[in-house]
């Protein structure tokens, strides 16, 4: 009971903890979501760096967190998305692999109908714009409701919905009628 109460108090904190050990505990429940976002947005050779950089950035910026303005999870995910974006920008343009290739490397099985379609989808996802890909990743792969995705993306929920709608339209066009 004591642990769960301490956990609840930590989750509800209006400010990020100021000592390293408590800060790590504050981040811990959101670590899997941060890892998912980093994996989806960064390449196979990059995502662990992105995750580590995200933790470091969150630690450095902990004084900026305001629980009244949003949840710890959304704040941490926004930092992770920003680190992933910076990671991509750091790469030389002609070496830039899009997320499709990264997704393919991440373990989609070659061969077979499912494998081929997964490749198609990964490639189509990789051709979305950066914000479309972020919206899709947050909503479908991290599992955030639209309102939370909007908090991460620093925009209105309607903007997320229209971005998702545009992304789905584009995916439909990319995948074609035969895709199942």
């Amino acid at each position, binding site marked *: 009971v004591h642990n769960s109460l301490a956990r609840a108090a930590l989750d509800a904190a209006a400010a990020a903890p100021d000592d390293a050990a408590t800060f790590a505990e504050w981040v811990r429940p959101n670590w899997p979501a941060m890892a998912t976002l980093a994996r989806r947005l960064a390449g196979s050779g990059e995502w662990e760096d992105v995750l580590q950089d995200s933790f470091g950035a969150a630690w450095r910026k902990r004084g900026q967190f305001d629980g009244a303005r949003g949840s710890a999870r959304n704040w941490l995910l926004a930092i992770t998305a920003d680190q992933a974006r910076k990671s991509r920008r750091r790469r*030389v*343009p002609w070496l830039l692999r899009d997320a499709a290739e990264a997704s393919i490397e991440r373990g989609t099985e070659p061969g077979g109908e499912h494998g081929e379609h997964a490749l198609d989808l990964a490639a189509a996802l990789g051709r979305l714009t950066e*914000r479309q890909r972020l919206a899709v990743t947050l909503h479908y792969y991290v599992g955030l409701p639209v309102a939370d995705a909007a908090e991460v993306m*620093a*925009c209105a929920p309607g903007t997320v919905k229209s971005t998702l709608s545009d992304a789905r339209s584009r995916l439909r*066009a990319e995948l074609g009628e035969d895709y199942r």
Partner: protein
Amino acid sequence: MTDIDEILRSDAARWLAAQPAPPSLDAISSAATRPRGRGRVWFAVAATVLVVAAIALVPLLRSASHHASTTPIAASPQHDSAVLALDQTTFVAVHAGPPATVQLRSLSNGQLVKNLYVTAKDVTAAYALRAPDGSIVVTSGTLTGCSTRVERVDPVTGLATGVRTVAESMRYAALSPDGTKLAYLTWTSCAAQTTPPSVPAGLDQPSQSDPNVLTVLDLRTGSAVRTTISPGALGIAGANFGLSWSPDGRRIVAAGLAGTPAALLFDAAGPQLAGATRVPAPPGCSYSAPAWTTSGIIVAQTCGGVSPQKLVEISAAGVVGTAWPLPGCIDDGVLAATDPQHTRAVVQLDLGDYGPSCSASWATRIVRIDGATLTTVLTQPLGYAKFSSWAVTSG
């Protein structure tokens, strides 16, 4: 075809199940206190030099002009040619594509009267606007962005005649009362001009998600006047932004800009943000989704939160007239439209799961303004996958 929403959910479930556990937080936590490596400095310097060089070369590789072109386009094939009576009984909506379908729907019960026109398959952004002569002006932007076809569709024969193609994307298109000018928002530059080679051109720019350049295009000459109405990035406050012409065609109202609670009235002949008249919303409130009718400007008013609470009629001088309370649980997605004579308005509202007291299901509702009351024309359930599956674009 399986819906893309279902495909994404299935892929996410498969992908998540196949992922190993994330790295130990404890190890990373301790590592975060160590000084950061400098190995990326050279990399960053090299990348910066290359990006600067690439940016410098862009104008040499592309035409510097970003104004509307006058490329003629061929007429589209004839569609179903049933005779339609455009006698104040229908409104125009666009069923999202691709391809997009321009629909006529009954103003009494929302029922589909006719699928009037189908765009090309690669069209992802379309508006259909009723002109005073009864024709429907259709704008259709392609998947690759940076190009929009403007066509005039005969509502009787279904024939589409090319008006012109413009070399940019259009959003929030509105037709002048005389049918000769198109007001819309576009981006400061085309995505294809700014994105790295491995990122295909898209409808959105990676670094600038919202269009912010108000443009008035003369459909007869192809000339355009423009003004930047927000610094860019997240310039549009959700999906409630809108443009509407004054009934005399001399001004354009814009409402729903992020950080701008007022409605802005622009001179249609030469819009300038600095010279725009501001019609301020009450303290703590904001205006969006305008429809300028002969009796006043109807706007959605939001006082706190995201959802507008009512429609209000305001004058250009800011005097508030009639108010129409809106149902609860309205999410973003408020669109308003008038008929070409600007005598009536219809408003689309997206009802959704925004807020704990609202239903988890989504629906789009069309309401008609009948004097002092709002009459629901129809309510159509929607899922995420079908959000904005169609939208009212003109009355």
